[in-house]
């Protein structure tokens, strides 16, 4: 065990901190859930990309630095400590890109990744459908195989919903049912589709905070060429699941994000002084500690990943998911507790709380994660 950073790691931290200090200011309050904010955040992704800070862990050929997981963690710590904004590109970088690295072709990677990192092409995820939330295998949107003018591809029909920032995004990735005769988990194909294409309709959906970044997306014969299939046709479930248990379990929500929020919670606590209740103090301490524990758990997991040949998180990713989502809530609840009567008013803490409430729902509900923990980590029998 050696918990000191190497000289290059320390230097990278210093570089990232300095760059962020110098650049983040005008972008700090931009929201990717409003049209204006989204446009501004395209610029922000471009700035990051030009500094090769948009996707530090990617190979240099795609605009990254080939950074290690440690350096990625360092970057994230600095990013959130600088109060930098949620990025437009997060679904692309954290969800689609790992899939392309594992299952994509070189052609796909070269064509897609640099534009993703530079903010030129922003990706929406298309996991949910009206009747397939937790039960992803219940997907009904269809991809029909076609060959038109000698060009092979797919025509899409159906509906995706809860596409974050979908109202403003350029492209969407997701699973579509390509073989309706196959069993629930089979016959799905992993496709990438242009949201501006003919046969695609994007309808904004207003959510809790009143912003309209979310969208429903309707497909009525939109065309996707064969080159935009990831992995083999009808093998989309395996592609999606394999990536879900890869590093992605680790990198979806970095510790840096919660460490920064927890530190702001402590600042709020100290600023309120005697006005805060001793019982609330305990909730502040617990939340801050939970963020620390998340960092340590992650450091331990990264050490395992770095040592092993097979970089898989496996079912441990479920422990991770439950912890960070409930941690995020604990931090914000403690803050609202500190605010007392003032919690009747809108604030960054309240908006953060609303956002945090979604944590136990998306990316696999915490109920399902607990099933996975019980059945796959503890070996209990299915119900």
């Amino acid at each position, binding site marked *: 065990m050696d918990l000191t950073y190497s000289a290059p790691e320390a230097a990278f931290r210093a570089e990232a901190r300095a760059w962020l200090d110098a650049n983040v200011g005008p972008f700090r309050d931009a929201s990717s859930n409003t049209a204006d904010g989204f446009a501004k955040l395209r610029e922000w992704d471009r700035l990051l990309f030009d500094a090769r800070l948009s996707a530090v862990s990617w190979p240099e050929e795609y605009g990254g630095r080939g950074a290690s997981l440690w350096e990625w963690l360092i970057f994230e710590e600095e990013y959130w400590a600088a109060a930098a904004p949620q990025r437009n590109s997060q679904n692309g970088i954290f969800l689609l890109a790992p899939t392309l690295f594992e299952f994509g072709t070189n052609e796909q990677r070269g064509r897609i990744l640099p534009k993703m990192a530079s903010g030129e092409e922003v990706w929406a995820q298309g996991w949910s459908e009206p009747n397939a939330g937790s039960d992803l295998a219940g997907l009904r949107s269809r991809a029909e195989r076609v060959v038109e003018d000698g060009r092979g591809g797919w025509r899409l029909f159906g509906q995706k919903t809860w596409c974050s920032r979908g109202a403003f995004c350029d492209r969407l990735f997701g699973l579509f049912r390509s073989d309706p005769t196959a069993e629930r988990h089979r016959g799905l194909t992993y496709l990438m589709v242009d949201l501006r294409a003919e046969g695609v309709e994007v309808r904004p*959906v207003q959510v*809790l905070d009143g912003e309209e970044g979310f969208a429903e997306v309707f497909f009525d014969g939109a065309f996707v060429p064969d080159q935009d299939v990831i992995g083999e046709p009808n093998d989309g479930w395996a592609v999606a699941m394999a990536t879900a248990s890869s590093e992605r379990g680790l990198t979806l929500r970095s510790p840096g994000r919660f460490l920064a929020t927890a530190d702001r919670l402590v600042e709020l606590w100290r600023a309120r002084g005697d006005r805060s209740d001793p019982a609330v103090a305990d909730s502040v301490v617990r939340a801050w500690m939970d963020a620390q524990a998340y960092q340590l758990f992650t450091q331990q997991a990264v050490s395992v990943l770095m040592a092993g040949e097979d970089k898989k998180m496996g079912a441990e990713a479920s422990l991770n998911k439950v912890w960070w989502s409930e941690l995020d809530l604990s931090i914000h609840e403690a803050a609202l507790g500190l605010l007392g*009567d003032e919690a*009747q008013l*809108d604030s960054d803490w309240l908006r953060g709380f609303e956002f945090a409430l979604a944590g136990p729902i998306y990316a696999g509900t915490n109920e399902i994660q607990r099933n996975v923990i019980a059945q796959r980590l503890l070996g209990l029998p299915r119900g």
Partner: protein
Amino acid sequence: MNFAFTEDQMAFRDAVRTLLEKECPPEVVRARWEGKPTEVWASLSDMGVVGMTAPEDAGGLGMDELDLVLVLEECGRAALPEPIVEHAAVVIPALREGGGKTAQRWLPMLAAGEAVATAGLGEAPLVPDADRAALLLDDHDGCLHAVEMSACELTPLDSIDRGRPLFAAAWYAEKDTKVEADFELAFDRAALGASAQLLGLADRMISMTVEHSKEREQFGRAIGSFQAVQHRLADALLRLEFARPVVYRAAYAVARPGECAPADRSLRVSMAKAYAGDAATDAARAALQIHGAIGYSWEFDLHLFMKRAWSLAAAYGDGSFHRRRVGDWLQQREDSDA
């Protein structure tokens, strides 16, 4: 000894529920969100609800907190976007007790619902629905003052619940604004009123979620058949059903000052607010988790109730404020015969 409401009280409650189901569906709450006027105040005035705590000779029904608590529960269930707590539970009783010219002038109008009153009694100076109100009851140096809204400078604040918009109010305390009524009592009444509404909100969110979980299917079965969902809703119901008698007991304490010293009244109210706030915010949490993403949608009604619950749970002292008040009482009481 009888811990039950009268047939009359329950009949009045039922009538209010029926009226609000008809006249205050979610669309009416949404209209208030968008700043549009609602009709429901007039209907509640016609029914006598708005003036129920005013003396009969001022045109009211002369009712007390035991009558009121059931009615406010219904107002909570409907997320009524009106300052009914401040108007009927706080200002009218304070004027009734304070007497004097202010009462003579205002009580008949408030009882008839022709004028709306609100109040600003919390730790933070937040006045709900001041845009709707003609009269403000506020505290200054531990005393209550009634000020005409036209004499106040209002600043709209960014309320998390736009069905309960909040304002800062600046005004000058003068001799003739003073109301000879007890500030602590007014605060307790506001907290009690919020507690009653929180019960109704919890009930509404639990019902919505039960319905949803019976209909929504995942993995080939209704999600309400999963034990995790069942136990979460069972816990929400448990909290609600145990908060309920605590709130009713507080209403009794306020309604019967002869049986209850002020410190004991505040104790009862603090317990009510702590339990009701927890019950409603817990119900909100369970509701959102079980609804999943749809619960997040602006078009879906859940957030109207959820935000009201958050707003009222924080208003007039949150749970930890009131538990601390209970703790102080426990440290100071003379012996263990509570």
